[in-house]
């Protein structure tokens, strides 16, 4: 099932490449189909998933496992499976990919290439969340770079080339650090069954398989940092975040959606899946600096967002701020904090996707995104305004919407661990609220800018992309149990695994 979910989009891409020129509509529908099928499969998995089993570091507790030898001479395996850490991410990826394909129907330039690359990207994302073999994980991780480069570089805004290469270089730098750590891990761990070196993540997590200098704490710190920088670039954490505003602003709407909705989560996912359980001792040692980085992200991101005049840039910086919550919650190393972080990943994925879709809608019509260039739009496009308000309120953490649940859990979980830091982080919330409300006011309220008196209302296709997300945000906000149950067992276990070293 996981394999099918991962490679169906790739198959779709292959089919699209074979479609003769000029049949853009056919291409669009193939792409929609190739991304709808994984979504259907992911919903089936959601029903089939056993919520009581933890996974994390026990191979037998992973679900939907598929495992084959790939390159036996160096013990690379094709090993995929799902647990409570990856399940919500797989769901989110499948959902956002499908919506992003629908959202990209407006693309007119080189449709074939766009859709093929997009589906390749989806394969990469799915693969990352499903992989339990580090080598496989790494390959999927890198596979995403190429389509992303082209998607931003060809279909992006005016400074697309600069943004694309910046994104590529930053991520590659992180990847190379990850590769070095990967190889070092490989040579200093053994598979307890065969005695050979292994790329199996679960074997890495069993501390007794570590040998040689991997036992030395200072080396472990270096390796943790190598991985951390790799993941931090993706998150992106201050000070590795500068690629993000550029990439987001220049990327086409649907790609911004994927970038913020899924790709950023890979950083935090990597920390949960790889860094924490493999280096629990370093994680504990490094918890406070991580929390500080998280708080910096929250406050700094919010302040930057407030300073933006470009709507999309504001949303981009708000992502920086929101991803800080994930890190804060994880660093607390309490079950509540960890679940809060995972919840924030899931919830932010949906909310930020909405935000970018919405910015895309207004950009399509007005061809600019200057916050001050609008005014009084609320009277012209009421439905659109309603969606924006919903998304903004969700983003600033209004109770009853999913963002609130996530942030509250993060605060609850981390308050026990770092009291004063959380107080600072809570102040950040005020800035977050401030820039959202301010933007809302300047764009939709006040006197109408006559230039946009005839602005077109949001259309059916756009509503089709936004409505499911909006509904989910509301449902999860009121009744988060379905999502929480999905991840609870695994994340509690993850905390146990890390805490076991103290």
């Amino acid at each position, binding site marked *: 099932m996981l394999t099918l979910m991962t490679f169906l989009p790739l198959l779709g891409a292959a089919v699209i490449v074979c479609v003769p020129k000029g049949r853009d509509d056919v291409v669009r529908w193939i792409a929609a189909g190739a991304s709808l099928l994984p979504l259907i499969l992911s919903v089936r998995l959601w029903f089939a998933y056993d919520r009581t089993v933890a996974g994390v570091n026990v191979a037998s507790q992973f679900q939907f496992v598929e495992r084959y030898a*790939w*390159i*036996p*001479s*160096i013990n690379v395996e094709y090993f995929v499976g799902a647990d409570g850490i990856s399940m919500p991410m797989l769901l989110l990826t499948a959902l956002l990919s499908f919506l992003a394909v629908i959202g990209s129907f407006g693309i007119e330039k080189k449709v074939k290439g766009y859709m093929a690359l997009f589906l390749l990207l989806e394969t990469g994302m799915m693969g990352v969340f499903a992989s339990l073999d580090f080598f496989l994980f*790494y*390959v999927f991780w*890198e*596979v995403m*770079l*190429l389509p992303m*480069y*082209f998607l931003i*570089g*060809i279909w992006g805004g005016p400074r*697309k*080339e600069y943004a*694309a*290469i910046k994104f*590529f*270089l930053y991520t*590659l*730098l992180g990847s*190379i*650090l990850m*590769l*070095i750590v990967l*190889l*070092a891990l*490989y*040579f200093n761990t053994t598979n307890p069954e065969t005695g050979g070196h292994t790329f199996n993540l679960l074997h890495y997590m069993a501390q007794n398989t570590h040998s040689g200098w991997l036992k030395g704490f200072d080396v472990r710190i270096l390796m943790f940092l190598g991985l951390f920088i790799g993941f931090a670039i993706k998150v992106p954490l201050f000070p590795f975040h500068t690629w993000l505003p550029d990439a987001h602003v220049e990327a086409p709407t649907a790609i911004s959606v994927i970038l913020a909705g899924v790709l950023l989560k890979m950083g935090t996912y990597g920390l949960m899946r790889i860094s924490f359980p493999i280096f629990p001792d370093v994680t504990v040692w490094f918890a406070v600096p991580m929390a500080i980085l998280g708080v910096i992200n929250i406050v700094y991101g919010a302040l930057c967002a407030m300073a933006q005049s470009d709507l999309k840039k504001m949303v981009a910086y708000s992502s920086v701020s929101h991803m800080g919550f994930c890190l804060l919650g994880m660093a607390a190393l309490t079950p509540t904090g960890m679940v809060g972080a995972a919840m924030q990943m899931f919830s932010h994925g949906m909310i930020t996707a909405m935000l970018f879709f919405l910015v895309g809608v207004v950009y399509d019509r007005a061809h600019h995104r200057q916050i001050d260039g609008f005014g009084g739009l609320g009277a012209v496009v009421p439905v659109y305004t309603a969606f924006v308000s919903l998304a903004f309120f969700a983003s600033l953490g209004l109770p009853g919407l999913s963002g609130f649940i996530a942030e509250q859990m993060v605060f609850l979980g981390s308050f026990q661990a770092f009291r004063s830091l959380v107080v600072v982080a809570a102040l950040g919330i005020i800035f977050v609220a401030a820039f959202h409300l301010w933007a809302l006011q300047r764009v939709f309220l006040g006197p109408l800018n006559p230039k946009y008196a005839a602005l077109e209302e949001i259309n059916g296709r756009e509503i089709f992309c936004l409505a499911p997300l909006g509904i989910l945000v509301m449902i999860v906000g009121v009744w988060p149990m379905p999502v929480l149950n999905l991840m609870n067992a695994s994340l509690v276990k993850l905390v146990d695994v890390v805490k076991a070293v103290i």
Partner: protein
Amino acid sequence: MFLGNLGSLQYFLPEFAVTATILLLVALHVASKRPGSSAFAFLSILGVGTALLLTGAVPAGAGKAIFEGMAAYDGFALFFKALTALATLVVIFMSMDSGELAGRSQAEYYIFLLSTLLGMFLLSSATDIVMLYLALELVSIPSYLLAGYLKGRRHSTEAAMKYVVYGATASGVMIYGFSLLFGLSGSTQIAEIGRVVAAGKGTLPALLASVMVAVGFGYKIAAVPFHMWSPDVYEGAPTPATAFFSVGPKAAGFAVLVRFYYTVFASPDAATGLWRLNSTIDWPLLFAALSAITMTVGNLVAIKQNNVKRLLAYSSIAHAGYMLMGFVLLTPAGIQAILFYLVVYLFMNLGAFYVVVLVRNGTKGEDIADFAGLGSRAPVAAVAMAVFLFALTGIPPFSGFIGKVYLFAEVIHRGVYWLAVVAGLNSVVALYYYARIVRSMFLADPTDASEISVPAVPRAMLVLLAAPTLILGVYWEPVARIASQSVRMIAF
């Protein structure tokens, strides 16, 4: 046990095939009235193809010392013979498609090409310094001629001139090193010299010799600081010849580098399966530094290049630097990594040059700007080029990545972390300039929107080169196995 001259002949079949083809080409050249005929190319393909088949046909076994110990017949030599023959084969196809060579005398060109191949065959099996030197010159002299093949074009003449001057200097220094070794040991056999060095006689002359020989070999693989010739030569030479230089002689250079240093200045240690140094001379450290400098200089200078051929020249300097990482570790896995890298490098680098040839035919230019809009003007060539370039960068799922993984893995395994970090940072730099070409092809608007037609044969060749570049990135077990089996070098 040395095989006598007659008994050795049966192990010399690939060389015979090439020699026979060269002689036939010479005869036909004299007799033929149409020097531009493509019959010469077909004949060369036939000859090299036969040689390639013969390399595969004779089993290596444990290896033999042939021609009274002048050359080795072992897995290592066979690997390089197959590799260089394959590279030559691709280059012949490339030459047929090249507009630069059209209208010039074809026979001479292929005679030079095949003579170089013969030299590379000998170089990869030479176990005697006299043989080794002859083989090296047999590679070099036709190469000079190839570089200057475009008579009347200033760049080409300059290339040949530079190549000769640098080449002669390097080989002069090297032969001085050889004579020191001969004086030290009284033997021309590298195995015998190795035993003398291991016995600890004359450390200083041996040290001097190791550095001097490094100059000669470093020149052949274009390692910094002996790389100065290569960008100019690469730019001036006809593109197929450039492609050839960047793969064939470079591979042969690595073959002789490994065999020579691992025999003379190190010896296999039966207990650990690794090599240990024969003397106190720490040449691995010297080469590790050379490796780091080579890849860094190659990459940094490549950033500024606007001519794609020059860019690829500097990038191939950087790749030599990567491969040197495997050389300094004194482990079979290190050599295996080099061999594996050479295989993937052959496909991706020849592929990239192939596209340069085709673009040059279409646009008459070789600058990055001439690649603008190639994505819409010649989609197949552009996509293939993107595959080659990303593979050269070392991004999965392309073969270049696996090649790098093997090199990085062994470096990390042996604890030379600083080198791994330097190489890692270099890979990021490399992305920047490779992506410039990709950007030009797909992101820039074409200056001339007309379609560049790519005929069927070159198109098929591109696919043939791109397919392994992609497949070896996903499933590389067989090649890795061949590479690991080919590490076996005989020592006698």
